C-alpha cells in the first residue's frame, strides 16, 4: 500500500477518540479497514489523520438490554456469525452475513464500519432496517440514537456529523421470528444487486408482522413499508405476492452500475422479494420455498 502520507492516532478510549476528532476535522476512522484501506491504497481518499479505533474494547461488547440486543460497533462480522445469542435474538443477521463479501473480509470487517460506510449494496444495512435497528452516535456534545432506516442520505452518505462516532447498534429482540434474505449477486461475494431482507411473524400461514429492508435498489439501503403492508395480515398466496411485487416496484429507485443496470435490478427485485417471503413463511403457506 502506497497511500498519501497521513498521521496515525490510536486512542485508548472513546473520550480520547472524540477529542482527536474534534481537533482534526479531516480525520477518518479506521475500524476493520475493509473499505478505508482500499481507498487509501488507491489514493481515492487522503485524510491527514487516520484514527484507529481498534483499541476501543468498550465497542466490542454484545449485550442484552431489556428487549434489545446491543452490539458494539467494533464487533466483527465473523464473531457475529458465531454468536448464538445473536442468532436467537436477531435471526436475520446470520442469514445476511453469509452474503457479505468473503471470509477474510468478515474476519476483519465490523458491524459499525459496514453500516457507517453507507454502501447502497450493503447487506447488513438491509438486515438492520428489517430488524428495526437503530445506531448510537456519540460526540463530545453527547449521544443520539438514529434508526438505520433514517441513517442514510445517499450513496456512501449518512447523517453522521463531523466529530461523531457510531458506537453501537441497538436491535429489538425478535426471538422466534421468521427471517429470510433474497439476494441476487453475480458471484457469491459480489455486491448485492437486489437484496430483500425479511423479518416476519407467521401464524397459520398468515403473515401477522413483517418488516422489509432493501439493498441495491436505491441510492441507499431502504425500508419497504408499503410492500410490507401489502402482505401483513394476509396469507401468503399468489394474490398477496402479486400485490407485494407491485408495491415493491413503486418503492424502489435502483441506480445503474457496471455490476448491474437499474433495469436489471428492477427486474429481479420482485423475484428476490417473492423468494424471501416464500422462504420465510415456508410450509405454513402450503407452498414450497424457492430461496
Amino acid at each position, binding site marked *: 500500500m502506497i497511500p498519501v502520507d497521513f498521521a496515525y492516532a490510536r486512542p485508548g478510549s472513546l473520550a480520547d477518540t472524540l477529542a482527536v476528532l474534534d481537533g482534526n476535522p479531516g480525520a477518518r476512522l479506521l475500524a476493520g479497514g475493509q473499505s478505508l484501506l482500499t481507498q487509501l491504497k*488507491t489514493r481515492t481518499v487522503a485524510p491527514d489523520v487516520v484514527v484507529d479505533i481498534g483499541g476501543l474494547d468498550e465497542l466490542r461488547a454484545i449485550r442484552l438490554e431489556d428487549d434489545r440486543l446491543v452490539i458494539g460497533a467494533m464487533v466483527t462480522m465473523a464473531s457475529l456469525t458465531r454468536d448464538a445469542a445473536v442468532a436467537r435474538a436477531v435471526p436475520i443477521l446470520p442469514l445476511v452475513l453469509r452474503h457479505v463479501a468473503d471470509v477474510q473480509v468478515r474476519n476483519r470487517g465490523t458491524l459499525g464500519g459496514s453500516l457507517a460506510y453507507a454502501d447502497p449494496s450493503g447487506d447488513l444495512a438491509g438486515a438492520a432496517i428489517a430488524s428495526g435497528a437503530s445506531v448510537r452516535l456519540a460526540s463530545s456534545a453527547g449521544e443520539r440514537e438514529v434508526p438505520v432506516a433514517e441513517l442514510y442520505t445517499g450513496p456512501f452518505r449518512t447523517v453522521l456529523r463531523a466529530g461523531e462516532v457510531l458506537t453501537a447498534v441497538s436491535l429489538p429482540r425478535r426471538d422466534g421470528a421468521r427471517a429470510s434474505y433474497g439476494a441476487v449477486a453475480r458471484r457469491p461475494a459480489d455486491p448485492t444487486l437486489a437484496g430483500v431482507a425479511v423479518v416476519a411473524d407467521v401464524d397459520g400461514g398468515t403473515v401477522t408482522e413483517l418488516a422489509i429492508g432493501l439493498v441495491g435498489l436505491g441510492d441507499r439501503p431502504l425500508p419497504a413499508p408499503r410492500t410490507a403492508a401489502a402482505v401483513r395480515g394476509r396469507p401468503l398466496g399468489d394474490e398477496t405476492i402479486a400485490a407485494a411485487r407491485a408495491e415493491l416496484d413503486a418503492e424502489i429507485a435502483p441506480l445503474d452500475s457496471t455490476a448491474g443496470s437499474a433495469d436489471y435490478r428492477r427486474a429481479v427485485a420482485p*423475484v428476490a422479494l417473492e423468494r424471501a417471503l416464500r422462504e420465510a413463511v415456508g410450509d405454513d403457506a402450503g407452498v414450497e420455498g424457492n430461496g
Partner: protein
Amino acid sequence: MTIYAPDRVLAASNWVGRRAPRKEDARHLYGRARFLDDLPFEGGAIAILRSPHPHARIVSVDTSRALADPRVLAVVTGEDVRRETSPVASRSVTAPVTQYVMAVDKVRWVGEPVVAIAAVDMFAAKDALDLVDVEYEPLPSVADVDAALAGDAPLIYDDIDSNVLVHDEIAHGPMAQAFDDAAFVVRETYRVGRFSSTPLEPYALTVAYDANNEVYDVVANDQQPARSIGNITKALGVPTANVRLSVPESGGSFGIKLAIWPYALIGCLLAKRAGRPLKWIQTRTEHMLGGTHTPDVKMEMELPVGADGKILAMRLRSKENDGAFIHTAGIYGLIKFATAVGPYTIGAASIDLMSVVTNRGPVVQNRGVGKPAMTFALERSVDRAARRLGMDPAEFRLRNMVPPEAMPYTTPAGEIYESGDYPETMRRALELGRYREFREKQAVARAEGRLLGIGLSAGIEPGTSNIGYYSLLKGTTDYNGSSEGAVVGIEVDGQVTVRTGSVDTGQGHETTICQVVADMLGITPEDISFDTFFDSTRSPYTGQSGAYSNRFNDVEVGAVITATERVRAKVRTLAAYLLEAKEEDLVLGDRAVHVAGDASRSVAFGELAKVAYNKVVLLPPDMEPGLRVMAYYRNPMAKPPDRGDFNVQLTHSNSVHVVVVEVDKGTGMLDFLKYAIVHDCGRQLNPAVVEGMAIGSTVHGIGGALLEEFQYDDAANPLATSFQTYLKPVAQTVPRIELGHLESPCPYTLLGTKATGEGGSITSLAAIGNAVEDALSPYGVQVNSLPITPEKILRGIRDGAPV
C-alpha cells in the same frame, strides 16, 4: 516426413508420461518462490502519470514542480521518448503510422503513459505525480468499431485518413461455387467482448544503468525476453549486449507479459538519468487500463451448407477493436486462419480482416489469440446450421469432421492438421458428458418449465507459431517462431544441468523437461538441475524464444532433446573408449554408463565429466574436451509466407466440450450441471500438468463467456479498472470439469507432443454459448455475443432479444 522418434530419443520409460509431482510445487505452495518484488533491491522507484482522457491533444507538459521536489531523481516525458528512442514497430501494420511508447502530442487512451517519474521511493514517486502539470485539449473519442468506422468519426492517428490500420482479405478454395451449391447459408453477426487473463502478478521490473560499460541491466517478468531485447536495443539504438535482460519467477502471464517491453524501455531512459537502480511494480488498476486486453471483435460469418448437410465454405468478416497501439494490431485477425475451418472438411475459406483503431486501451496476445473468438463464431454457426437442418448438433458435426484416414489434412489456407481422430473425440465426449441422458433430462425439465440447455463445441488448438505469417501483409519475412535453443551439460560431479532460451510462467516446464532428460540419460529428475531463470548473457535464445503459442512441448523440448542427444552420444563414445567396450554394448542408468550384462564394467557420469573437463589427457585423442552442448531446434513444418499457401501454426490438438447449464428464469443466472472435455494433445509428457492447463484454460473461457469484460462507456472511458468491476470466475462459480484423453501422436514432433495450454480457452466459449442458446430455445433467444450476462439472458426471456 516423420520427426516422431520416441524410441530413438528415450533410453528409458520411467518418467515421460508419468504424473510426476512438480519440482516447482514446494517453493510455490510454501510461498518460498522469489518473484521480482521479493528480490533484494536497493534503489529508487518509478511511477507513471497516465492519461485521464480517452483522446486529447497535449497542449503542454510542465514537470518543473516535480523536478523541484528533492525526492525526485528524474523525469521522462513523451517528448524525451520521441527524441531518444525510435518509434514502435508494428508486426503487421503497413499503414504509415508513427507511435512511441509514451504519448507524444496526443493521448489516445485512458491510461496511456504521459510522464514517468523516478524518485527515491515509491511514496515519493507517487506523490510527485501530483506535481506534474499537463494541459489537455480533449478531442472527440470513439469506443467501438462501428463508431470508429463511421464517416464522421474523429481520426485517432493524424498520419492516416481513417481509423483502419489493417484491411485485407485472404481467400482460398472455390468460394463462389460453394455459395452457388448451397441449400442455405447461415448468416450471423457475433461479438466477443474484451477480456484477459489478469495474472496474479502484474508487470514488474527493475532497471540499473552501468555507466562504465553503458549497459542497461533489466530484470523483468517478461514472457518473451528474446523479442524484448530486440525491441529495446532497436529503440535505444544500442548494440545487443548493451541491454541485459533477466527474468525471475513470473506470477503467471498467459500472453499478457509479452507487452512489458515498452515499460522496460521507459525504465532504461529513467535509470540512465537517475544514476541509480529503479523499480516499477504495476498496480492492478494500471494493469486493468490497457496493454493487457484481448480486442473486442465484431464477426460477420457466412456458412453455406449443402442439402446433404455438408458445410461448403466459411466466409468471415472480422473487425478487431485493437485499441490505440500499433504494436500488435492486426494479429488477432490474421491468426484466425489457424482455426478458420475448425475440425471440418470445409473446402473454401476466406477471412476479411480489419484492425480498427479506437480510444480503448491497447491489446496484447492472450491465451489462444483470436482462436477463441474464431471458434465461437464457427461453432455457433455450426449449431445454427444443424438446427436449420433439424439435425442433432452432434450428428451434424460428425458428418462434417475430418476423418482420421484423411490425416495429415491440409486446410484451404495451408494449415496442416497432422494427426487426430476428430469423430472419435466427439463420440467419447458425448459419452463422458452423458449427452443422450441429458437430452432426456432436458425434455423432462422443459415439461416442468425449467430451462436446461446442452452445448457442444469442437475446437482445434494449434501450437508453435509460424510467426512468418504476420509478414503476409507486409510482404517480407521478419520473423519465424519455430525455433528454440537449449544448453545441456554434465558437470564435473555428474550433475546434469539444463538451460533453455525460454522462460516459464507457471506451466511446469522444469518438471516436464527434467522428466524427458531423465529418460534420455537413464537418471531421475532429482539428478537434474534446471535453470529456471532466463538471463540474456547466458541463455541460448533465438529471435523468437519465449513461452507462448503452445510451443514448449514442441520446440523447447525439441531443443533440450537435441542438446541431450549430443551429450549422450559423446558420453557413450567416451565411455566406450574408457571401458574398452563397443558403444552398442553400453547402457545408461544410475548416473553411469554400463556394459550390458557385465556389472563389473561401468563408469559414472562424474568420472566421465572429470575426464572431459579435468583429466583431458585421458580423452580419446580426437575428442574435444567438455560435456556441455548448446543446440538449436526448429520445427521444419513452417512454410515461408505465401498468401496462397501458408500455415499459421505447426501442431494441432483438438477437443470437444460438452456443457449442460440450467438458467434461472427469474434472475437470468445460470448453473453448470455438467462440464466434460475430451481432448487429444498427442503424447502427454506429464498428464497432471496437461490436466491443470486444460482446466485452467477452460476456466479462462468460462470467465470470457459469462463474467469478464473490460467495459467502456461510449466515449471510451474504462468502466472496469479493478476486480470489483472486472469479474473473474471464482471457486464457487466454476464447475467440476471432467477430462478424457485420446493420444494421437504428432508425426512432426520428436515425442509426438502437440499444443497444450490454450485448448480450453479456444473451445469453451462456443460450448457455453451453445448451451445457453439451447436452454433459451423455448423463447427463441439467440446467443450472439459474449459475455452472456444474467441481464442479457433476462432481456431475452422477457422480449426475445438476442443475447
